[in-house]
Every structure is written in C-alpha cells, then in structure tokens.
C-alpha cells in the first residue's frame, strides 16, 4: 500500500465509529478524529467498556439460581481520548445495518 492509497483509506474512516481494544482488555468506542504513522488514534465522544472482573464472574457462577446468569460489562463516558498505537490490539469498524458502509475496503 503506498502513501496516497493509505491516506485515502484512512481518511474514509474519519468520523466513523471505531472500537479499539487495548492491551489491558478495555474497549473504547468512539468517533475517529485523527491518526498518524504510529497508529495513535484520537476518538471523540468515547465510552469506555470494561469486562467484569474474574472475582465477579466467579461470584455469579457460584451464586445459586439460574443456570445462565449474565454478568454485565461496566461502561462510562470519557469523552475525547487518544489511544497510543502501542496499546491498540484490535480495531473494529462499526457498520450500520441499513446498507453497506461506504468505506472501500
């Protein structure tokens, strides 16, 4: 992929909703604003999602009652964030169900 191709591809993603997985197992969902060579990504209007802790899962599993009990992820609003490229493990693009996304992939 050459530079102009890369710039074109990335600029299509601007303003799209991305989900970034980080090395500490958190997920950040927000609107992409900016990126650079080191894959640092700025997201706006971001929510942070965190998997329930192991202790909580154990507690739910051990608790008497239903066979399948849900454990909820905790989430909170964090606003504008920059996720350093070194900590990004996975990048996902949100696609609307109403028609294909207009990103040429």
């Amino acid at each position: 992929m050459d530079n102009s191709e890369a710039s074109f591809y990335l600029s299509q993603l601007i303003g799209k909703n991305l989900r970034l997985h980080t090395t500490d197992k958190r997920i950040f969902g927000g609107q992409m604003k900016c990126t650079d060579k080191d894959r640092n990504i700025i997201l706006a209007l971001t929510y942070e999602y965190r998997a329930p802790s192991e202790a909580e899962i154990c507690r739910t599993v051990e608790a008497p009652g239903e066979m399948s009990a849900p454990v909820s992820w905790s989430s909170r609003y964090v606003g504008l964030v920059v996720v350093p490229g070194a900590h990004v493990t996975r990048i996902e693009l949100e696609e609307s169900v109403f028609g294909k996304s207009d990103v040429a992939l």
Partner: protein
Amino acid sequence: MAENHGTTSGESTAVVKSLNISDGASSDLRSPPADLPLRQAFHPAPQPTFRDITEKFIRACSALDTGQLVKDEYFTLFESIGALEIMDPKMDSGFLQPGETLEDAYDTLAPLLPEEVIGIMDQLLSYEMAWHRGYPLSQTLFTSVYIDKLLWPEPKTFEQAQFYRDGPPDNKRPGVLLEVLRAYCLALIKCCDFVNAKVTSRDYYEEEDFCTHTYNRVLFVGTPVDVFSRELDAAVERMEDTDLEMNLALQEALIARLNFRKDFLVALDFHSPIERLDKSWPPIFSNLISLNATHQLGKSVPGAFSTKLQRRLASTVPPRPIVELDFADAFQTLKQLCLDCEEATHFTRLEPDPLEYQSFLWAYASRNPTPLPYSRSYLATLLFHPTTLNATTSIPLADLRTLVLPASPLLDPTNWTLSPPRNLMLPKPPRLQLALYIDEFIERSGQPYLEFWTALGQNRCRLRRMLGHVIISWDQLQNDAGIVDEDIHATLEEMGTQVQDQVLAYPLTSWTYAKKLTMLEKMILLGFEQDIYLPDEYAGQYFFLSTVSSRRRDLLSNILAHLQYRHRCLLSCVEPDLPKAAEVEESIGYLQTLHAGATGIWSLSTALFHFYTLLMYLRLLPIPNRPFSSETLRYELRMKPFLTLQPPEVLPFEEFRERVRPFGDYVAPDAGFWKEVADGGSGGRLWKEIDACVRDAKEAFASVKKAGAKKARAGGVERDWGREVQGVLASCVALGVGAAGVKGALKEVGGGKAGGKRKAEGGMRLGLELGVKVEIPGIGTGKRYAEGWVVGKVVKG
C-alpha cells in the same frame, strides 16, 4: 405530516376489512374501526455489526510518512490537546497498575466499631465542606465507598439504596451501626441534592464558584425530604435502644451527629416556605458544639475512601487526588455556612424598601470571610423571591420616589387612574401622559436594576468586575432617561408653572446619574480593597475617585436644594399638606446622609491624592521599572472600563498627568516642589489642603455617623454599617497622623544648607535622607481601618 397520517390510518382500515372477510361470524360484534393513528410495535434497535479492520489499518498507518496526520478537517490541534491519553497513569483514570483490581476490596457490610462510624461521619462532613468550598464531588464525597454503594448502580426504589445489592448475603445482615451510617449517608446525599438545586437556581459560575457536576449519579432528586428524616429518626431510636451495649459518650456522639444531620437537612430544604426559614438555622448551632467536642472520639477508617471510585464516574478529566480538608477547617466552614445563612434569613425581616435591601446586600457582600456560594445563592433566592420582587410599588419606582420624587405630582397615584380619550386622535390628559412616561422608564430600568442586584450577589472580586458592566448599562439607561425627561418636561410645561415648580428638573437623569456615580465610587474602592492598584498608582486613582465623588456631591446638593424648597412650600401654603411634607422630610434626611457621605469620600480621597503625590516626589514609594510599557497605555488600560462613560468623562492623559504630577517629573521636580517641602512643609499649599480635607472628611463622616443607620436606609444592618463608618473615620485620623509624620521628618532634615544641597542633587536621595519609611498596609492583615481606604503608615527607619 397530515398526509402521512392519512395513509397509515387507511392501511389499518384495510387490514381490518380483510379480517372481516375471513371471519364473517364475529364481524357484527366488531366496533367500527376508530380513526386512530397506527401505533408502532416496539422494535429493538438493530444491532450494528463490527468488522475487524486491524490488519489493514496497521498496514495503512505504516505507509504514512512521519509527522503526517490523517484527520478530520474541523479537528484542531487545540482540541486535541484536551484529549485524555489512554494508558497514561496520570491522565487515564481507568488505568490499572499491574496487579491492581478495579473493584475496591473494602467490604461495606463488615461490622464497624462505634468509634469508626464517628470517624467516617466526620470524614464525610469534611469532604462535604470541601465540596462547598469549590472542589468537585469526585475528589470529595464520591470517594466514599459507602456513598458509592448507595448510589451505584442507580437504585430504582428507595429501599434498594443499601450497602449491598440484590438482597443481603444471608449471614451478613447489616448491624445497627451500619443502618445508622446508612441513614446518615442518605441524608447527606439529599443535602447535596438540595445544595445543588439551590446553587443552580441562581447566578453562579460552574467550577469557578462551585462544582455541581454529579458524574451521572442521581442524588435522590425525586425522593421527598421526609423520607430521609424518617430514616434519621429511626436511626436515633435505634441508638437510644437501651439494649445496645455501648459507651454512653459514643452513643451520645452518634445521636448528636444524626440530630445535626436532620436539622441541617431541614434547613437546606429547597422547598421550605419562606416564613419558616429563620427558625431552621438556630437548632443546628446547639448540635455543632457537641459535634466538635466529640470529634476526638472518632477513629478514622482510611479504607472507606478511595480514589479508585473515580474510575467508574463518567468523567472527562484525569484522575485527581482526594482533597483533604482538616476537620477543624471543615468545622469552621460549616459554622460559617450556618452563620451566613442565618444572617441571610434576616433579609425577610427588612422593611420592604429597595434601599434597605441594597444596604443589606452590600453588608452581606462585605462579610469576612466571604460567604460561600451556597450562602450567596441562599440570599439571592430570598432577594429574587416573588414576594420581594412583586411588591406593591415596583422596586425601581420606590427607589426613584425616595431619592428624587417624594410626594411629587409626577408620581401621584391618581395619574394612573385616568382613562385615555375614546378617540385615539385626541391628545391624552397630561397627567395620564406622565404616568405612561414613568411606566415606560420604570420598565426600561428594571433590567439594569436587577443586573446591579445580581452583581451584588457575587463574590467581591467578581462584584468589582461585574460592576464595570453594570455601570455601562446604567450609562445607557441615563441616555434614555434624558429622552423621557424631555418628554416629561414638555408635558409639565403644558400643565403650567405651578406643577412644574414641584418637580425637580431632569428627575430621571438625576436619579440614574446618582446611582451610577455611587457604583463608580464603589468600584474604585473595591479596586483598592483587592490590591488592584500598585502604590505608585494610588495618587491617580484617588484623584479619579475624588472627581467622581465631587460630581455626586454636587448632584446631591442640587436635589437636596429642590427638596428643601418643596418642603418649605408644602408647609407655607394656606393649608399645609403635612403627610406630603413628612414624606419629603424623610427623603431629605436620607439625602443629607448621602450628601455628607459623598462629601466625606471627596475630602478623604482628595487628601489621599495629595498625600500620595507628595510621597511620590519625596521618593517614599517605590517606582517600579517598566521598560516594556508606556505611561499613556497603562493609563488607558486602567481607565478602560470607564472610557465609554459620559458623564463622567475620563480625563485625557495629558490633563491627568498635569494633575498627578504638579511639579513635573518625580525624579527632577521643579521649584514649586522645593517650596512645598521647605520648613517642614509649613508653607506648602498641598500640605495645607491635606489638613483641611482630612478635617472636612472627619466632620462629614461624623455627621453621617450621627444621623445613624436608619436615616441612611441601612437599619437592617446597623452593626455592619456602624463598623464601616467607624473604619472610615479611623482612616481619616490615620491619614492625619501620617501626614504629620512626614512633615515632622521634613522639619528634622530641613534647614537652608541641606535643602540647597539636595536641590543640586536633583532630589535623588530624598527618601533615604528623610529617615522615614512608608508602610502600605496589606489586604486582609487587619491593618487597614477600612479596606478600600489605603493609608500608608509612616515609620522611622
């Protein structure tokens, strides 16, 4: 929209019809289809799908050049600075150190000792007060694990607000003490809700004054106050239970805390009726004493508070440390809060007179220490309460009547009872016309008037800044008043000289001008009070103050002369109109006080102006070296808030310079200066003027003091008013002493020979030779007799 509606209902009819065909038997029972819009069934929002683009994204990024950015064209570098860096422990509140867990290990159901409960309660109180002093909840109360448990996940019913969720673990039903702590915490949260509601209902500045942010936590907004009172009552009952095996002192300490919280909650109640307010604060004070005395019984539980909780708050700021406020400090804050609020309730007992209100507001704004945002909102709520604002006479009108138009035909109530002629082409009766003019003006003045009151409800620093804006809006009002005055004048002329004689010329302009000048004086004095000016600017600023107050003094004596004439007329006519004469007399009393006050301010500021001018020439005040600015620009900047005013117009710089530097340059004064300081200043014109002005000022303020607070329309705050006048009087005395001190020093070094020598050297070392120093008393040190009147102290050395 209408078309759409039609088609939907049409469709539904079609459906019913087709059903009818298939089910003929029941078709008769069916009611005819109602013409209602189609109700959509609830469809869950379609779940978006996510596509993994990691690999391609990484490839694309690595193809970018170093330093190349792919960004939204509207996204600026400035904005990007505000982004929180994830995984940076200083920025990312969600970052976990290796091995650290998100959840706090603290068990909120573990039994507590009574000492520990006291410790936690007192710590909570400290955090509550830190919040009152301006820190956000995230750094104070929301660091409490107990409060977090009660508020998150958000309880759907009040009963759900427990230290546990989803039913208590069987073996761990919370004990009595935990129930007591729960009741206390619940009431505390409701207190915060009331405080937030009160503060946000009035003018305040988010984060500057107070942080109302609750981080997406709901502080039991919908739950009424009696629910919390009941919880506290039940807790007190539990504590009083004789079966409880507990040290009596601890038991009493806990009960005192519960009772305090209950009284405090009632006092803070947002919906409390205005008549009951003054009764709600005194009960708190009795509990405060035992609260403070039993604090040492408590044992702190550091684990019950944690910064980790910030990770779960909706927050766009980096993690911040817990704010530690000493209990002694917190207690002092609490006491101050209660005292200030109690003082504010006295407002409801004032006579319904805008001038009394205004004196009260000034006195309240001058309280030391300055009232907290909550107390200020508390007073503002009373001030802007419908019962205050919807007085029988509108507020600006009442003010106008007292100051310039007592018992005036212009404000005769019968003016408002006349009907306009049926034929609109005919002129209206002149008296009705007057009423309409006055109505027009009063409506126009409402906004500037309320702006002024709003400014008075702010803290001192902001009051000064806001006054700058308020003065400008009063300047515009004065312009408009001039136009209405012309109209009034024309109508009065029509009515004949007899009526015209009874009305002050340009009444509305005079009123507006007098008010505006008062605000200007206060603003300049506030500048001194807050150390806005440097010592080498003192002369210039006191000079400006003296020009403003001399205009006010002249204006007031004008009004006063008219009122005295009116008074004589009313008494000397064939049938003396005594009630009217009494009304005018009352206004005269008020104006005399104002006039004496203005004279005092003029004399004292003139004296200080000359005093500081001479000190500058004597090199007794430091002249800072300012290589990067010119005096003209500095003057313009300092006078900026007043440059647009007319009147009073700010003097052009050249004229100003002539006044504050009567002897030319400070470093090389002309011969006039040497005459001034010769023979210990005995022959000096300025020294003489200083003495005369100090004498006049003393006399004027003494007569203000003698007239008393009632006449000055400050009867509701008599003590504060008296203290203020006393402070100014003491400043006059101090200035007399200071001037004498400098003159004495001049005499000591005086003598023909030395004088001649100094002249040769250009007076460069004069300050050193005099053997005296001038100390400027700092703000808040208690060394100023009145904070706005800075009188330098002359000391040997």
